[in-house]
């Protein structure tokens, strides 16, 4: 907090000094860990890039209190568009960065197949998110603030996904016959048993028959600069973001802005100034949005350049050449998106632990064919998630906001149930608010807006449910005279 916005009665925290020391210690550990990893093998720089970008994301997420759960939830719960505005600014800016990366030829992005599953996944994810109090990356940065409830959310997201993708025979009764037929026709290797289990048949019998595309590709201008900047960035991300900002202004900001500024008959100029006031009303969030946009683009560029340098398609090949063959998928790959992604690596943490406990889960498509189950110490995107926690902890310590916070029973149950729903929603929708929304729309793939629509619907229903819970609880305990 700067001098000028300290209100009367503000307590200047005496622990600020020790917070800075803790922050320095965490950063020192990241640096030390990086040196140790590089001294083992310099090729670990590929993994460390994830750690460093994760740390930068964590710093920015905490600084801007950047939480996509609140973007959707606070609109309906308390009528506050602040976070939704920040998110849309980040989308618009990141899409420009992503376009630069695409035109440099380093893009690691692949469009998501479009189908009903995206809206349903978004709906389940959005509903769960209201109860956990944070989205997938929001829970990571809040864990970095010392919030134990958010750590439970991460645990729930990990294990629910791991269990969901490895569902066995019992789930076959929910599989449409057409999926089983299509799954059989894929001719996948026997050891994957693709006609066994709901999720495997969902992937091989349904998802694989769908197509994903980018705006540039569908307009036939895929390889041109116009296709990348105009179609994939402007049409897919910037224009929809601007339109949504106008909608947010009209429904959630305009009236109070005009009232505050005593404007009776607003002209175009007044409304434009109102829009600008809305965009700048939370400077930290907008700045974090700009920073996230820049770093997310830079991460794609850096990873793309490293792939070129090592002449690899992904981290699996590098792991193999370093002699780490355990946990690779049948194709010799591991999950390695090269950009900001959250849920899949968390599924791998849970899946790896279950695997070590004797659960056979390398016979499913998600782990066995596509993403592998690397040891968490060799899970590059996993280190991005850990980096987010550490970066947020650094920023929280510097701002004297770090505090161990134990959840109440209610919060713990919400964290576990909501986190489980988020995990299931993320697997059905092929990602979370980052992987399925943020990373897609900014790379010219409109499927992310469909995920957002589902997430908004789920968020709306979640707020309804949450309000009903608060009312019921108050009427029962009488501690909040409503």
């Amino acid at each position, binding site marked *: 907090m700067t001098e000028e916005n300290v209100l009367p009665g*503000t307590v200047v925290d005496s*622990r600020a000094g020790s917070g800075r020391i803790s922050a320095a210690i965490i950063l020192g550990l990241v640096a030390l860990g990086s040196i140790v990893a590089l001294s083992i093998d310099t090729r670990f720089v590929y993994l460390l890039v994830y750690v460093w970008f994760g740390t930068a994301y964590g710093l920015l997420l905490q600084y801007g*209190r950047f939480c996509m759960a609140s973007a959707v939830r606070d609109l309906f719960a308390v009528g*506050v568009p602040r976070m939704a505005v920040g998110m849309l600014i980040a989308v618009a800016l990141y899409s420009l960065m992503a376009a630069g990366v695409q035109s440099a030829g380093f893009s690691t992005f692949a469009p998501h197949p479009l189908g009903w599953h995206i809206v349903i996944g978004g709906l389940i994810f959005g509903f769960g998110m209201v109860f956990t109090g944070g989205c997938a990356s929001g829970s990571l940065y*809040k864990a970095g603030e010392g919030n134990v*409830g958010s750590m439970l959310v991460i645990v729930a997201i990990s294990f629910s996904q791991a269990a969901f993708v490895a569902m066995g025979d019992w789930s076959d009764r929910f599989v449409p016959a057409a999926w089983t037929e299509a799954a059989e026709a894929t001719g996948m290797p026997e050891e994957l048993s693709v006609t066994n289990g709901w999720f495997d048949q969902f992937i091989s019998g349904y998802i694989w028959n769908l197509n994903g595309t980018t705006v540039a590709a569908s307009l036939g201008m895929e390889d041109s600069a116009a296709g990348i900047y105009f179609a994939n960035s402007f049409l897919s991300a910037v224009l929809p973001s601007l339109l949504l900002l106008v909608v947010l202004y009209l429904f959630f900001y305009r009236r109070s802005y005009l*009232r505050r500024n005593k404007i009776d008959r607003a002209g175009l100029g007044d409304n434009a100034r109102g829009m600008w006031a809305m965009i700048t009303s939370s400077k930290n969030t907008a700045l974090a949005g700009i920073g996230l946009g820049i770093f997310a683009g830079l991460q794609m560029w850096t990873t793309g350049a490293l792939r070129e340098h090592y002449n690899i398609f992904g981290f699996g090949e590098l792991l193999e050449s370093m002699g780490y063959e355990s946990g690779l998928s049948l194709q010799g790959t591991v999950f390695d998106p090269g950009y900001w992604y959250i849920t899949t690596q968390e599924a791998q943490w849970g899946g790896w632990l279950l695997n070590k406990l004797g659960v056979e889960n390398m016979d499913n498509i998600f782990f066995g064919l596509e993403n592998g189950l690397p040891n968490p110490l060799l899970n590059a995107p996993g280190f991005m998630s850990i980096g987010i926690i550490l970066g947020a902890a650094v920023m929280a310590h510097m701002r004297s*906001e770090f505090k161990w916070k134990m959840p109440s029973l209610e*919060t713990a149950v919400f964290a576990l149930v909501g986190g489980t729903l988020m995990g299931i929603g993320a697997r059905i929708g092929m990602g979370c608010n980052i992987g399925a929304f943020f990373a897609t729309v900014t790379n010219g793939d409109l499927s992310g807006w469909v995920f957002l629509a589902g997430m908004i619907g789920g968020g709306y229903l979640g707020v309804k449910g949450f309000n009903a819970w608060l009312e019921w609880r108050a009427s029962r305990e009488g501690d909040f005279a409503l």
Partner: protein
Amino acid sequence: MAVKFEQTGDGAYSLDVRGYSCPHPQMYTKKALEKMAAGDVLTLQFDNPSSGESILAMCESSGNELIDRADGSDGSTWKIQKA
């Protein structure tokens, strides 16, 4: 851990949502303010920094005024006067 909302004097209320994370603090604050009359003052105690951002924005849009603010590593105590 219970949420405590009580009248502490003439036109003065207090709400203690310490220990709660998003979205509890901002939702309880909204409900508390809805129960109060114009000019009443709410003393709000919370320890979830992100909720503070939402509560600030909520005050701005509804015209309620944040008349006193104390933030420390053990949480925040804000006084909000209802418009």
